């Protein structure tokens, strides 16, 4: 608890005890007899007695209300409460007046405690900010601020330390816990040459790492920045609530005033007893009931908790608005490679080649060594030896086609059938299912390399779960051949696919889906971020997978999945749906209870105690419900 909260708690306890004593005293000590006082004097005595706890606990509210009036900010909660309680005192309902302000303050305290607690919870969840980095200086380990470490420095990470900066291991091997970043609890083993990511925890052995980023650009810093700024982008529901509160509060003030004044005036006109007391009391009850705190606090709290909980599970959502859109997603378009399949390719065979297998693979590896494409990597991996690409020149990579380069004096083209057609090479297609990489040397066909991709182990389960979450259509988009696409879709039970697409065709398909759907449905695109940044930004919601490392994807996507487990897609949507359910529950329940109580209050059935429940009770329920959004482990 903060200092302010403690002070408030103390005030509440004092006021509570005082009120209880006064109340009990009034019951057991019949004043008329003991003090020989008249009725009026007793009232005055009661007023003075009850004013003590009222001033203790409610003076700052009255003060704020007056300041509000002075600054022309009438009709906020403080004003509502001040008017209601002062009104109750004026009517001689001292006990109820004190009770209203007391419970209101208890509710406020509870709310600020809950908000503070979830704020702390979330920052603990995202506790990936490294405090120090260890560097070796003159044979001694010195700890420095991660901000001061330059790119390319060697840092030492001891077991138990948080990895302060992204880098590549130079020395040592260890296991690291990536849970804080990816949500994955199984530790990862890393060795010399592997990349380590800031924010993870080194578990078993000391390693020396050459840093590849400075602190501001490191994964940990970027994620922190993302999460902290996430709730600045407000969702429609949040905007609705703040607009709503702006109209709502003055409206109920006027309503309460009319309720207190009109019926008695009407009674006067038709010649009946105006019953001023009764109607003013009803007007005050109306005011207390209508306080909008339950809504204005619980909605942003729910979004905040939802985004925090998702972050803990390795799903970064860039803003409340995206959380809302994600929950309405009905169409998902997937990229194939790296999203539903591992993108770890294996060379399955070399066909139709005239030269020796090793020679062909060597030439291919030389050309592909500079590319980041997973297929290129697999060819380099299949070659197995260190690639000497000193004789490679005029390297050119065309997305959707392939690579051309000069190896020595030979012009080599490696890519798909489109590339072959471009150079008028007679190519032979392959009968096996897989990605075919054709190789042409000096515009003459030199054979092809068959590469097969492996479906991710969780892909099938993820698709099943997505269907259960109410997706209307799942579509796979791929640059691969028809046969490969069909094979993958059959295995995963995806009903729709489009194959042989260029990156720009994927944009076209996303646009087409957006045009054809209902206005309310949302179209999401899931990709691994490698050369699909345009598609990610074109879809209503772009989801990038395995966000670690692919900076362009983190920029372009609205939701970033920290590792490449496809189950995270269904998890992200599940979290968003749960969160929005809580938002609607809170709007529904609090408005519903308030509406019922308002009607009862207007007819004089609800008294001040019920009003207190409608205000404070509903708020407590709404806040507790909002905190549920933090828990995402069972989705």
């Amino acid at each position: 608890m903060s200092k302010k909260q403690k002070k408030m708690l103390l005030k509440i306890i004092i006021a509570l005890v005082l009120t209880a004593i006064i109340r009990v005293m009034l019951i057991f000590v019949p004043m008329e007899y003991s003090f020989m006082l008249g009725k009026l004097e007793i009232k005055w005595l009661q007023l003075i007695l009850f004013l003590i706890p009222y001033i203790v606990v409610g003076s700052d509210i009255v003060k704020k209300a007056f300041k509000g009036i002075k600054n022309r900010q009438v009709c906020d909660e403080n004003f509502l409460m001040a008017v209601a309680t002062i009104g109750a005192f004026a009517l001689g309902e001292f006990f109820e007046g004190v009770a209203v302000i007391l419970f209101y303050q208890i509710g406020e305290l509870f709310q600020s405690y809950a908000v503070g607690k979830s704020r702390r919870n979330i920052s603990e969840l995202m506790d990936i900010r490294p405090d120090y980095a260890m560097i070796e200086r003159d044979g001694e380990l010195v700890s420095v601020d991660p901000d001061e470490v330059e790119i390319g420095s060697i840092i030492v990470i001891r077991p138990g330390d948080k990895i302060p900066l992204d880098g590549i291991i130079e020395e040592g091997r260890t296991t690291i816990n990536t849970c804080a970043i990816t949500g994955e609890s199984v530790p990862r083993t890393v060795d010399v040459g592997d990349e380590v990511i800031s924010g993870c925890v080194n578990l078993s052995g000391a390693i020396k790492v050459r840093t590849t980023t400075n602190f501001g650009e490191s994964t940990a810093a970027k994620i922190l920045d993302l999460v902290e700024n996430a709730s600045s982008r407000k969702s429609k529901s949040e905007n609705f609530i703040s607009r709503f509160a702006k109209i709502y509060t003055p409206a109920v003030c006027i309503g309460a005033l009319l309720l207190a004044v009109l019926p008695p005036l009407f009674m006067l006109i038709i010649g009946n007893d105006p019953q001023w007391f009764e109607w003013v009391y009803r007007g005050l009850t109306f005011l207390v009931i209508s306080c909008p705190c339950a809504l204005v606090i619980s909605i942003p709290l729910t979004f905040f908790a939802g985004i925090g909980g998702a972050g803990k599970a390795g799903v970064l959502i860039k803003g409340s608005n995206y959380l809302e859109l994600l929950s309405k997603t009905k169409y998902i378009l997937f990229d194939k490679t790296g999203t539903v399949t591992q993108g770890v390719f294996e060379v399955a065979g070399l066909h139709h080649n005239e030269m020796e297998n090793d020679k062909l693979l060597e030439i291919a590896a030389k050309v592909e060594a500079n590319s980041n494409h997973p297929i290129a990597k697999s060819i380099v991996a299949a070659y197995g030896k260190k690639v000497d690409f000193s004789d490679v020149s005029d390297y050119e990579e065309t997305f959707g086609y392939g690579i051309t380069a000069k190896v020595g004096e030979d012009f080599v083209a490696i890519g798909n059938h489109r590339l072959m057609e471009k150079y008028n090479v007679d190519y032979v297609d392959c009968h096996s299912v897989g990605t075919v990489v054709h190789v042409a040397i000096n515009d003459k066909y030199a054979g092809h390399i068959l590469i097969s991709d492996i479906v991710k182990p969780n892909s099938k389960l993820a698709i099943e779960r997505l269907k259960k979450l109410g997706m209307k259509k799942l579509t796979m988009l791929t640059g691969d051949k028809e046969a490969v696409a069909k094979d993958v879709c059959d295995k995963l039970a995806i009903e729709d696919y489009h194959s042989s697409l260029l990156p720009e065709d994927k944009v076209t398909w996303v646009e087409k889906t957006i045009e054809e759907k209902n206005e309310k449905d949302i179209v999401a695109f899931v990709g691994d971020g490698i050369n699909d940044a345009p598609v990610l930004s074109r879809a209503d919601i772009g989801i990038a997978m395995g966000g670690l490392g692919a900076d362009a994807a983190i920029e372009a996507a609205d939701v970033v999945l920290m590792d490449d487990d496809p189950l995270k897609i269904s998890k992200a949507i599940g979290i968003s749906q749960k969160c929005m359910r809580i938002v609607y529950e809170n709007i529904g329940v609090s408005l519903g209870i308030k509406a019922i109580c308002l009607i009862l209050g207007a007819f004089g059935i609800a008294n001040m105690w019920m009003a207190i429940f409608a205000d404070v009770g509903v708020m407590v329920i709404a806040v507790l419900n909002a905190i549920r959004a933090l828990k995402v482990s069972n989705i």
Partner: protein
Amino acid sequence: MKKTYKIEVDCANCANKMEEAAKKTEGVKDCTVNFMALKMIVEFEDGADEKSVMKAVLKNCKKVEDDCEIEI
């Protein structure tokens, strides 16, 4: 130019009010208040002097919400 400031405020509605007050301040192009992270992100107009603008922002915020604080 965008800058982030730490703020102190008690309720979500008050944070909204601060946001609006800041938006209306001269020299401020746009402003978002993040109640949950207790942060105010201010985008200044070109050529505005941040320090004096932020002083005005704080003054305007105090008008609508007496209890608020901005760490300038």
